């Protein structure tokens, strides 16, 4: 299992003009501790940087953070870019404070799933949640 997990490569970053670095740093630490290979492109990452990093590292999933409120604008089109780049099936998760203001989460989630994300996470999600879901989505359910 430990071995299998190591094969999963994740691209991690904070999209747009967003500089919130703390959650990103913790996610990197927690995901690495959990055995994933983490490619952290850091804050202020453009859609292109996400896609390129995924291509270059042959990543299994892209984890997008957006904290500052412009997530709705910044994330639009990312799935399409992935398709163009020939990695249309890559798993994409998104989390943080995705929209401006305190909004009904069910609505927000719907919006981001419709954009092509496989999973969306509300404010305050703990890294363990992402780890559990990754393992589940890649078929490691039993083992953790």
């Amino acid at each position: 299992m430990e071995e299998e997990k190591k094969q999963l490569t994740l691209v991690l970053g904070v999209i747009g003009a967003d500089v919130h670095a703390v959650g990103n740093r913790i996610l990197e630490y927690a995901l690495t501790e959990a055995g994933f290979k983490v490619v952290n492109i850091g804050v202020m990452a453009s859609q292109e940087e996400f896609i390129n990093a995924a291509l270059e590292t042959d990543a299994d999933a892209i984890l997008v953070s957006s904290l500052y409120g412009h997530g709705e604008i910044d994330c639009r089109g990312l799935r399409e870019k992935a398709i163009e780049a020939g990695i249309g099936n890559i798993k994409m998760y998104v989390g943080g404070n995705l929209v401006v203001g305190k909004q009904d989460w069910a609505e927000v989630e719907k919006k981001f799933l419709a954009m092509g994300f496989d999973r969306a996470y509300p404010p305050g999600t703990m890294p363990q949640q992402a780890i559990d879901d990754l393992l589940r989505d890649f078929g490691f359910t039993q083992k953790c």
Partner: protein
Amino acid sequence: MQLSNKKLDWDQFLQIRQEVLNSWPTGQEVDLEEAVAYQSRIPAYRRFAEKLEQAKKEGITLAQPRAGVALVHEHIELLRYLQDEGGADLLPTTIDSYTRQNRYQEAQSGIEESRSVGRSMLNGFPAVNHGVAACREVVESVKVPVQVRHGTPDARLLTEITLAGGFTAYEGGGISYNIPYAKDVPLERSIRDWQYVDRLVGYYEERGISINREPFGPLTGTLVPPCISHSVAIIEALLAAEQGVKSLTLGYGQCGNLTQDVAAVRSLEELAEEYLGRFGYHDVVITTVFHQWMGGFPQDESKAFGVISWGAATAAMAKATKVIVKTPHEAMGIPTKEANAAGIRATKQVLNMLKDQPLVEFKELQSEKELIKAETRAILEKLLEFGDGDIALGTVRGFQAGIIDVPFAPSRYNAGRLLPARDYQGAVRLLDFGNLPFGEEIKEVHREKIKQRGKAEGRDPSFQMVIDDIYAIGKGMLVGKPR
């Protein structure tokens, strides 16, 4: 030309100015002479510096929210609400993140999209795009002074437009609006760009118009030890004063331990007086701003009220000149105007109840102050040494060398080697000093205090402890508990 802390030559300033004003169409709206004339007509009750000085004299603490939305009329409605229903003593205009990165084109899309969906799609007010007249409409719509708050490494155009637009106070600085707010902007560049900003403010001052300047105190808002933010505040104070700034509000973000926080606010003012005096800036009025906890907040609104109120209490006991107020929506998103006003009201209740109860300077408070001063002086003196006596140059070199270092900052011009952690009583100490130029005596204090905590928790201090501390307040504690 090598960076140095020297007043910008006016002709050189005017040369740069052409470029700045040309960088977006609204730049053409600024006519400096007309702007000075406009500013000189602004009545005293809408002048930031005056109100702060008055508060300092009376020994009270003023409350100021953060707030900004995409569209002018919505923004005016928001500010009026915070004034009338929140009782804000001072108002902000928080600028959106695209504008902060000079991405005016994206800001424009945000404005248009906001218009079409009927809610703000931007996390602030895009003042550059709206232009001078809109800014004036904003400041004239309320009865209290309004400040520009942002996080912009290159804020030259924003400053031109908003000062011409009648704002009487302006937040930021070449370090504090770069290191926590950017990834790729060289410090040398942002310091230069902020020398421009300060020079412009200095020019207004020469013309008899007081514009308050406020370096951004909390930096990354997350376990920043006082000596780090104090060093930045004092550097930016020196840089600003050299350009002719006369009204300076120095800031500090709450750490959560009362003794440390009060010691921090008081030592900040004393240190600033010390350094400004030493470098010959004698006519600068120093006031202080205390930021309610700037790190991760609890999601629950009642708990958030607890955090907000404790911040207000600390501000009052420290006798900060103003306090920047958080809201019960903090963990969730940009607050509604109602949530924002609620934060102000809770804050003002506490401020009023405590306004005549400054914390007495007991022994532990004094030693905490002395510790902070010793740490800050150690950093500043080393920076001066690095800059051959020039603080601007020393700062650039010092950041390179990690002599000064901001925890959790996104900038690649920051060493990022510090590991802060709370001690047993919740004061922020250092677990890893990186390259900070601290003597053994100071280091021993930190080690001892963190060791004491480690013992109480039965674990060795480690990065896990830091993570626990980052989550702590959000999870209803101050000191992070081991899992």
